[in-house]
Structure formats: C-alpha cells, structure tokens
C-alpha cells in the first residue's frame, strides 16, 4: 500500500517536473519574441479577417488579449475596453463567440502537448472553428438585421 502511494506520488512529481521544464522556457521565449515587428505586421494582416468576422478594429485589443491571455485573466482588459469603446451588442456577442471557443491558446495547447498531444491539430482546428463560426454568424446576423 505504501509502495503504491509512493509510485503515484513519483508519477505526479515527474509530471510536475516535466511541466516546469517545458512551460517555463517556452513562456520566456514567447515573452521575449512577442514585441518583434513581425507580430505587428501579423496584426495588420489579420484586419481583413476581423472584418470578415464582423469586428471593427476597436475590437482588436480585447480580442487579442483574450486569444493570448485567456478569458479569466484577460477579463479585466476585455471588460474595460469593451465598455470604453462602447462596442455594439452585436460585436460584443461575435467577439464573445470567438473567444468562447478560442482563448488562452498558447497555454491551453502547451499543457496538452506536455502529455503527448499534437499541438498543431489542437491549435489549428480551434482557430479554424472559431473563425468559421464567427464569420458565419456575422454574415447571418447582418442579413437578418439589415444593417451595415
């Protein structure tokens, strides 16, 4: 019995060590690289995609905060920006739909990669679904309301 407990504890500690060894270096690299001009250019490149999802450029900061930091941690920024900019209800729901399916993508993907998952599939499919659904809803909603 004691041995079983020790084995379980050892397995748990191994997993904990693996998490530390993978998560800390990757988060550090991400933090160092994230101010690189390439990311700013990428930001401009996604503008047409945002328009496709019915989102105005004002939604960019809360959207990207959510995508990278997550809803729970990015909540402060999302709520504040959403109120300041007074995003219309339609855009708030569209952004909510995107973020509901797709947020904190770096961390979420990483922890499943640690135990053997395929990060590219998890990340790619999630982004694709979030984008597809939001764009589809934006298109439907626009037609129904007959607004710009």
């Amino acid at each position: 019995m004691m041995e079983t407990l020790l084995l379980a504890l050892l397995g748990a500690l191994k997993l904990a060590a693996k998490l530390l060894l993978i998560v800390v270096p990757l988060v550090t690299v991400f933090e160092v690289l994230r101010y690189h001009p390439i990311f700013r250019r990428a930001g401009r490149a996604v503008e047409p995609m945002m328009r496709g999802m019915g989102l105005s450029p004002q939604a960019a900061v809360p959207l990207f905060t959510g995508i990278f930091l997550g809803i729970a941690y990015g909540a402060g920024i999302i709520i504040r920006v959403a109120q300041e900019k007074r995003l219309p209800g339609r855009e708030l729901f569209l952004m909510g739909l995107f973020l509901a399916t797709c947020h904190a993508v770096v961390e979420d993907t990483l922890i499943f990669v640690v135990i053997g998952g395929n990060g590219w599939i998890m990340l790619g499919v999630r982004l694709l679904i979030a984008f597809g659904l939001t764009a589809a809803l934006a298109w439907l909603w626009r037609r129904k309301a007959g607004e710009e």
Partner: protein
Amino acid sequence: MAETIPDIPTRLRTGFIGGLQTSLKLIKFVLPLYVAVDLLKKTPVIDLLGELFAPLMQLFGLPGAAAFAFIAAFLLNLYAALAVMAPLDLTPWQVTQCGLMMGIAHNLLVEGAVLGSTGARGGLLTLCRLLIAGVTGMLLELGHRLWVG
C-alpha cells in the same frame, strides 16, 4: 496598441516569472489529482464508472474513464483535467482529441460569468461551447477513422 517596449532583460524576467506562475498553478492541481486518480485506478471505481460513460465517450474515440477528465475540465479547469488524464494512459491521438474538445469547453462556470459580465449573453455562449466541442470531437473522430481506415 500603444505600449512601451520593455528591454530584453525585463522581458526575460517577466517571461520566466510568468512561466513559473503558470507551472505552479498547474502543479497545485496536478499533484493531488494525479495521485488520487492513480490510486483510484487500482480500485474498481474508475472501471465501473468508466463503463457507464463508455457509450458516450466512444462517440469521440475515447475510453469511458476520459469522462472524469471532461467533468474536471467543465467544472474546474484544464489543469485539473490534465492531472486526471495523465495517469489514464491515453494514446497521443486521444490526448489531442481531449485537448481540442476541452480547449473549446472548459471552466464553464467561471468563464460563463466573465463572458456575461462583458455584456454578451454568457449562458447562450456556454451552451454554444458545449455544442461546438461535441460536434468538433465527433467530426475529428470521424476524420481520424477515415484517415486510419
């Protein structure tokens, strides 16, 4: 985004501390839950309850016991789900499947409230997440079966 760009040493420190914080948060869930599930695995409890969920989990190509990981993901968070999954000996494909579905739908109580507080309809969005996760999981499993043959 008008922000000042911190210098490299600051970024290194921020990243290192951020990574440590994430890891510690993870480990807080991983240690007790992993030990609990690993010990339960030695008893018939997991097998019995797993059988109950097997027909549902089969839709996604997962063993019945994976249901525990989903419960942990929906009610708590992904760290808890990870800790439950780790001792279950899932294949890499099954981990990917779980990771994708749980990535879409997790921490539903807290995040539903947060989404609601931004002025969007939290309840409706939470329902959407569960539906999307389910449909995605089934489609991915279908694709996987066609691919592998």
